[in-house]
C-alpha cells in the first residue's frame, strides 16, 4: 500500500480527496487502480500525468517501482521549450 497525493485539480475528479491509499507496485498499476476507482481520471492520464517519487519527477517510466515508504505525488505532465 502506498499513499499518493494528487494535485488540486486532479483531486477534484478523484472524489475531492487529495490523499489516496493505493495497492500498487509501480506507476502503471497506480494509474490503472486510480482509473478503476475514479473513471474521471482516465482522460487526465491520457493527457499526461507525471509522478514525483521522493521529489524526483518521472514522466514516462511507468515501470518505475513505488517504494512503500516513499512520498508519491502526482503532477501535470508539462512541456518545456
Amino acid at each position, binding site marked *: 500500500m502506498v499513499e499518493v*497525493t494528487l*494535485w*488540486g*485539480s486532479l483531486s*477534484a475528479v478523484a472524489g475531492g480527496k487529495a490523499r489516496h491509499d493505493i495497492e500498487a507496485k509501480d506507476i502503471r498499476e497506480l494509474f490503472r487502480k486510480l482509473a478503476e476507482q475514479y473513471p474521471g481520471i482516465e482522460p487526465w492520464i491520457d493527457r499526461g500525468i507525471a509522478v*514525483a517519487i*521522493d*521529489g*524526483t*519527477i*518521472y*514522466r*514516462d*517510466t511507468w*515501470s*518505475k517501482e513505488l517504494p512503500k515508504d516513499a*512520498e508519491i*505525488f502526482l*503532477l*501535470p505532465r*508539462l*512541456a*518545456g*521549450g
Partner: protein
Amino acid sequence: MNFDPRFSGRQFASVGTRPIRPDGVDKVTGRARYGADFNMAGQLVGRVLRSPHAHAVIKKIDTSKAEKLAGVKAVITAKDLPDLTDGDAAMYDILDNCMARKKALYDGHAVAAVAAIDARIARQALKLIEVEYEVLPHVTDVDEAAHHHAPLINDQVFTEGLEEKPAKPSNVTKRTQFGHGDVHAGFAKADFIVERSYKTEQTHQGYIEPHACVASVNPDGTADLWVCTQGHFVYRQHCAQLLGMEASKLRVTSSEIGGGFGGKTHVWAEPVALALSRKAGRPVKLVMTRDEVFRASGPTSATSIDVKIGARKDGTITAAEATLRYSCGPYAGSWAEIGAMTAFACYKLENVKTVGYEVLVNRPKTAAYRAPSAPMAAFAVESAVDELAHELGMDAVDFRIKNAAQEGTRASYGPVYGPIGIGPTLEAVKHHPHMKAPLKANQGRGMACGFWFNFGGQTCTDLNIGMDGSVSLAVGTVDVGGSRASLSLVAAEELGIDYSHVKAIVADTSSLGYNDMTDGSRGTFSSSMATISAARNAIKILRERAAQMWDIPVEDVTWEKGHAVAKGEKYGNLSPLSLKDIAAKSGTTGGPIAGHSELVADGAGVSFATHICDVEVDPETGSTRVIRYTVVQDAGKAVHPTYVEGQYQGGAAQGIGWALNEEYIYGKDGRLQNAGFLDYRIPVCSDLPMIDTQILEIPNPNHPYGVRGVGETSIVPPLAAIANAVSNAVGVRMTHIPMSPPRILAALDAEREG
C-alpha cells in the same frame, strides 16, 4: 530500462574540456545548411494567405481565379486538410491553427495556400483568392478576455477545474490550483505584507531563422520533409496524423537550426507544404517571411499576475499567494498552470496557494518559450520578495537565503525536494565580487532567483565503430546548442578515445528509433544517457572481439582507457588491444561493431539559478542600459563548459530583451502593429555587456555523469533581476514588463504627481 543511470562519481578525461564544435567551421563559413537552404529539382514555391482580421467567420473562399493563373500548380484550403484527428482535441487545434476551418481566430491565421512555379506567381495567386469574412468582435488583452462580457472566442469552451460546472461558456478554459497549508492563517501571523499586481506583455522567441521546409510527396504515397525543427520525430508524427499517412512512410530530416527556444516544437507550415505537394505532385518549398513568423508563429503568453507575500519581523515568510492569468491564443493551453507550479518553487513555505487561469485571446496560438511560463511568474514573485525585503530592512540576498527551499522542503507545487541547488546559487551570489562593486548615479542593482523543472524523455542513439577505429554517433535529438560536441565528448569519455575520433550527426526519422523533441532542457541530458548506454553496449562487443583475438574467455577481458586488457597473471604477455586494433580485425571476428540504445531518460532533476544585474537609467528619456550582468547556475556536470556558459548567456540576453523592449503591440483593430525586427526590438551585441557566468556543479544523482539540463533556467530570473535593478535605480517599483522608455517615464511621472 536495462541501464543504470545512477551517478558514479567517476573522474573525467574528455568531459569538462572545451574542444571546437564539429558544426563550427561550417557555420562560420556559411556552408551549414539551414531550413531554407535545401532545394529539390522541380520544386514549387509555397505561399500562405492569412486573415487580416483578428476574429471572423469564413463564409466563403473562392480559389477559382487563382487556380486558373498560369504557373499555379495547387491551391489548398481547409478542405484539403480534412479532420483526421479522431477526437484528439489538441491535434484538432493544431490542424485548425495550420489552416482555419470555420473562423479566423487571429490576425495572420492561415486561410488558404498556393504552390506555384515562382514566388511572383504565388503572390499573384494569393491576391486572386477571394475570401468572404463576417468580422466578429475580438479581444486581445488577457484581463479583458477573462471578463464575463468579453467577446467569446469559442462558445464550446466551459471553464474546467471549477467546483461546479459553469452554465455559460467563457474564454477562461481552465482553473488550476497548487499549494499547501492555510494562507489566511499564515497572513494573520505576518508583520509585513506586500501585495501587488503585475503585467507582462507577449513576446516572440525571436529566433533569427524563420520557419522553412521542403515537402515532397511521391506518387506512391511516401513523402520526404526537410525542415528546421527542434523535433523531427514529433513533426513526423503530427504531419502523418494530419495528412492520414503511416509515420514510417514520411521521412523527416532536420536541418541546422537558427534558434528555436520552444518555438520550433510545433508544426505550422509543414502540413500545409505536404498538402500542397500532394496536390501538385511536385516538391514544395515553404519559407515564412519575418512578418508571418511574428503574426502566426510563437509567441509566449501575455500575463496578469497578483501576488501577496507576508513575513514576520525576523524575515520568515509566513504565507504566499498568487493568482496568474496567462493568454493562450485562441486554443486551450496549460500555460498558467506551469506558472502556478513554478511561481514559489524557490522558497520554503508553510502556507502557499497559487491559482492559474488559462485565457483565450485573439492572438497567435501560444507556443513554448524557454522554461515556458516561469519567467513571468518569477518576475511577479521575485519583485514582491525584493519589496518585502526592503520593507523588512533586510538585504535582498539574505532574505532569500533565510527562506530558500532546501532538501526536505515541500515544494509549492507539491512534492518534497531531494538535493537541490537554490541555496548554493544564493551563497555564490552573496560572495560574488559583483555584489560589492560600486554604483554611480542613476544606476541600480537587482538580483533574483529562478526555477525550472527540466525533463528527460524518449531517446534512441546508435554508435558505429568504423574499421579504422573512428566512431560515428547518430542521435535523434536536434542540436540546438552544441550537443553534437557534448555528445561526442561523452562517447569519447566512455570509450576511452580522443574526441577527434568521434563524429556525431543528427539522424533522420527513418534511420533511428523515435526521439522526443529537444525541449525541456533535455537534449544533452537524455542523449548523453543514451550515448553512454550505447557506448557500453559497444564495449561489451569490443571485449568479446578481443577475447576472440586472444582466444581467451571474455570474462577475463576488461575495458580500460580505450583498450581491451587481459586480466590475470597468465595473460602477462598479452599487450592491451586498442579500440583501433580491434576495429581493424572486425571483419573476421564477427563483422561490424556497434552499440545501440533506446531508453526513457527520467530523473532530470529540477534546476535553480540566481542572477545579478546592474542597470543605468536615463531619467530624461527612460532608456535603460544593462551595464553588468552575472549568471550563477547549477549544471550538475558541465560536459562542455563553453556551451553551458553559452546557454547561461543566451537565456540572460533573451531575458534582457523581454524585460526592456520586446512586446507584441496590437491596434484597436486587433492587428499586430510591429511584426518585424525594426519595430520589435530584440537586443543585439551592442546593447549587451559581456554576461559573466559561474557554473556550479552539484551532481544529478540520476545521471551517470551527474548532468542536469541547463538550457532553460537562465531565462527565468532576468525579468525580475532587471525589474529590481531598475526599481532600485529610479526609486519606483516597476510592475509592467517590458520596462520600455515610455513606461519608465510614465512611472516616474506618476511618482512625481503622487
